[in-house]
């Protein structure tokens, strides 16, 4: 019998693209062919450089003098992981008058010594009058590399109450305190960065994406951009990435957790009785899809080394997730699994067999609880709303159901189901 799928066979039919596109691409190819080998596909290098150029200046920027700015440029790139930010400005006498480097999210400015203006490096002055403090993901590795490349070790890497750090004097005499600050310190300084065990991305799995689009637009004011498939949407304007995905029989919220090292986390998943695919490199980081030992699907995410995903600080905003309840069949198994994989710790909650998840004594972000005794695993979100009375009205108008708002110690909540059977809560949290 002939396979009916053979009817799909489609030979290539040439199509002329937009002539402007054709001309632009030809110009790009001509440029690419002129570039040195290996430069064409360097999308990542180009983005890194561009990200260095695009960095906004913070309120305070160090501007240092060194006795050999050219060498210093190379050295900071190789030893401390700096990225070049634009071309140096070279003076008539061949000294570098100004050059910039990006370190993580910050800029360092630098120039050769200009003795005639009183600008001298530490060596000429007989020592530094200031230190430069640098936060890095891998403090041990950075200090080791710096010392191998000629830095002097002033204080070896050690754990302090305020974090792990070491001190080096670089070959130009500058003193660097290289530190991996604890996440609490980072939290206080800026918007919190993703920690291992935080939720990096969530996706609402629904039977019909169009209906969900309309329902949540009405209830929460969500705006959308198309996803890469007809049945997916990205929710726009939220401070943490969130999507909608249609075609799902069992409504839930799919969670993607941040981890420090995805390959190690994948091993932990398997050791804990779950399954995990091999990690794959995506433009935004390394991803591995997993299933826990009770059948819940989730993913693990390792962000690129120099990326700092911030996850929104301060008061909640309308339509954002403010709490997640992970309903599971057996809470003891789930606690053991997520404890092993994500480093979560648990404190008993108010509800029976309810558990609050924590990382190093702090709430998981989003704030997350486990609840046992359910037929199958489901993640139930709570969305923050400014005015719960009217939000409950909107749920009912849009075809969903909602309990009357109920005052809890932490705010006013309503227990809702959308028009396709997805369970969620609304919370006007105090």
């Amino acid at each position, binding site marked *: 019998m002939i396979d009916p*799928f*053979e*009817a799909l066979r489609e030979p290539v039919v040439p199509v002329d693209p937009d002539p402007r*596109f054709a001309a632009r691409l030809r110009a790009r190819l001509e440029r690419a062919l002129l570039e040195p080998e290996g430069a064409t596909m360097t999308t990542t290098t180009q983005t890194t450089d561009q990200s260095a150029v695009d960095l906004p200046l913070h309120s305070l920027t160090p501007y240092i003098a060194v006795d050999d700015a050219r060498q210093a440029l190379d050295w900071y790139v190789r030893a401390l992981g700096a990225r070049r930010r634009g071309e140096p400005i070279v003076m008539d006498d061949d000294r570098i008058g100004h050059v910039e480097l990006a370190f993580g999210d910050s800029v360092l400015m630098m120039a050769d010594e200009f003795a005639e203006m009183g600008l001298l490096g530490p060596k000429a002055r007989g020592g530094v009058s200031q230190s430069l403090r640098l936060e890095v993901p891998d403090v041990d590795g950075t200090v080791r590399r710096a010392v191998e490349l000629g830095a002097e070790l002033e204080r070896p890497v050690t754990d302090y109450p305020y974090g792990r750090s070491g001190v080096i004097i670089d070959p130009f005499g500058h003193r660097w305190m290289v530190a991996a600050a604890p996440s609490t310190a980072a939290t206080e300084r800026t918007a919190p960065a993703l920690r291992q065990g935080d939720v990096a991305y969530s996706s609402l799995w629904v039977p019909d994406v169009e209906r969900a689009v309309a329902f949540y637009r009405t209830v929460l004011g969500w705006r959308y951009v198309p996803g890469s498939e*007809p049945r997916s949407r990205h929710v726009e304007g939220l401070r943490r990435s969130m999507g909608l*995905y249609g075609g799902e029989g069992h409504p839930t919220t799919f969670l993607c957790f941040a981890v420090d090292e995805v390959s190690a986390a994948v091993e932990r998943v398997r050791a804990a009785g779950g399954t995990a695919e091999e990690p794959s490199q995506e433009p935004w980081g390394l991803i591995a899809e997993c299933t826990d030992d009770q059948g819940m699907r989730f993913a693990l995410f390792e962000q690129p080394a120099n990326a700092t995903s911030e996850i929104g600080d301060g008061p909640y905003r309308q339509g954002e997730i403010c709490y997640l309840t992970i309903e599971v069949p057996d809470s003891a198994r789930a606690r053991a699994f997520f404890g092993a994989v994500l480093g979560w710790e648990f404190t008993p909650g108010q509800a029976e067999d309810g558990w609050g998840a924590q990382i190093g004594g702090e709430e998981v972000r989003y704030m997350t609880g486990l609840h046992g005794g359910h037929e199958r695993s489901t993640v139930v979100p709570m969305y923050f709303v400014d005015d719960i009375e009217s939000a409950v009205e909107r749920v009912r108008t849009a075809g969903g159901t909602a309990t009357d708002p109920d005052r809890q110690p932490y705010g006013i909540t309503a227990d809702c189901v959308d028009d396709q059977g997805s369970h969620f809560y609304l919370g006007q949290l105090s």
Partner: protein
Amino acid sequence: MGPRAELRPDPGPALLELYDAALPEVYGYLLSRCGQRSLAEDLTAETFLAAVEAVRKSPPPAMSTAWLVGVARHKLADHWRRSEREERGLRLIGDQRPDDPWDERLDALLAREVLTALGPHHRAVLTLRYLDGLPVSEVAAHLGRTVHATETLLVRAKAAFRQAYQRKEGSS
């Protein structure tokens, strides 16, 4: 660069010479398979930029339109892999009957419509196997899966396709 490199003929002009003839083929291939102009343009650009890198390899590949369409196919498979991850679209179609023959003539237009609505992994395997007519082993190589896993995926994809097709047929 050593003298040997200088002796090597520069493949750049040959690629540019091929460009005008190959562009509509590559673009036409990608447009018909992904159905979106902007995406087809992006993947076309990726294809030719990848070709620039490839022609510098030693020995350079035999440059032809068919070779460029092959590069485009890789780029398309990469794209689907990316979207598959992005959408977390991996679900199994439950209750398959793999050996149940489906004796029907497909309405090509309807079939294309159904195909675009499938998840990226199903779409990828069906496109490579049937639209492009590749043998399963080559499909497997493009998708970075084993032949066995590709066969399984193909069965699931056909089941998903068939389900969607029949639903659509019923509704229209």
